[in-house]
């Protein structure tokens, strides 16, 4: 029993914890951006380290205009209600799961839609809502038929 315990403990000691990234393995530019995390870096979980490293890389590759645009966007994001944030996160997670081609198509369509004048946007939304209503009506009708069949 004791031997088994010793074995399991030794396994946990020697198995690497995820694929943790050492602070010294970071590039100097990355270390500059992540300076505030230098003392606690080794204690962070590996997935957090990866995220921070990715964020730092993206930040480094941006010019000052893109950086200021992103800062403004982030400020807008933080001003949202927590409910709105969770809703948008859910939508965004769905968006991330679709293939890259579809993401491009959706993004292009969204950008085109945003550029349309308001009355045109309204027309398209009306059309879309009417179609949705028809679908919903069909669904509810089918449900009612099924219920009535059972009775």
């Amino acid at each position, binding site marked *: 029993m004791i031997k088994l315990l010793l074995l399991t403990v030794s396994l946990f000691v020697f198995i690497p914890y995820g694929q943790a990234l050492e602070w010294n393995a970071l590039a100097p530019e990355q270390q500059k951006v992540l*300076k*505030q995390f230098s003392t606690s870096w080794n204690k962070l979980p590996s997935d957090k380290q990866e995220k921070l490293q990715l964020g730092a890389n993206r*930040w480094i590759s941006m010019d000052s205009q893109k950086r200021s645009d992103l800062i403004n*966007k982030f400020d*807008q*994001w933080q001003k949202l209600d927590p409910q709105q944030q969770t809703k948008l996160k859910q939508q965004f997670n769905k968006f991330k799961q679709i293939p*890259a081609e579809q993401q491009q198509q959706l993004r292009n369509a969204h950008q085109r839609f945003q550029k349309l004048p308001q009355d045109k946007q309204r027309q398209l*939304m009306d059309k879309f809502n009417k179609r949705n209503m028809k679908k919903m009506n069909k669904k509810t009708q089918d449900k009612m038929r099924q219920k009535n069949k059972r009775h």
Partner: protein
Amino acid sequence: MLLGWLKMKKMHYYSVLLISGVTPCAVYANNKIPEKIPDMAFLEYLADMVEVNGELVGPLDIKSKKIKTAQLNDKERLKKAQNETIKTANDKVKDQKPKEKNND
């Protein structure tokens, strides 16, 4: 000689003005506003973004604007339509039942 002295004084006066005007600009140019150092929340937000068409897209970029399409709210319209379909379905059922009774 007096004229020369006056000229020199003018030159000195203008040079003093020039130097006093330039040095604050130089100091301001050197003391730039320090760039924002991204915090953890910001870096995570940045890392969560997705690259589409060479552009980083985040949750705010897929947010749709609320457009007023009609007098009624969309949800209210949907509810109304659903209630109407339920009514018509129920009415049909009611109509069928007496007919079935008559057939028997």
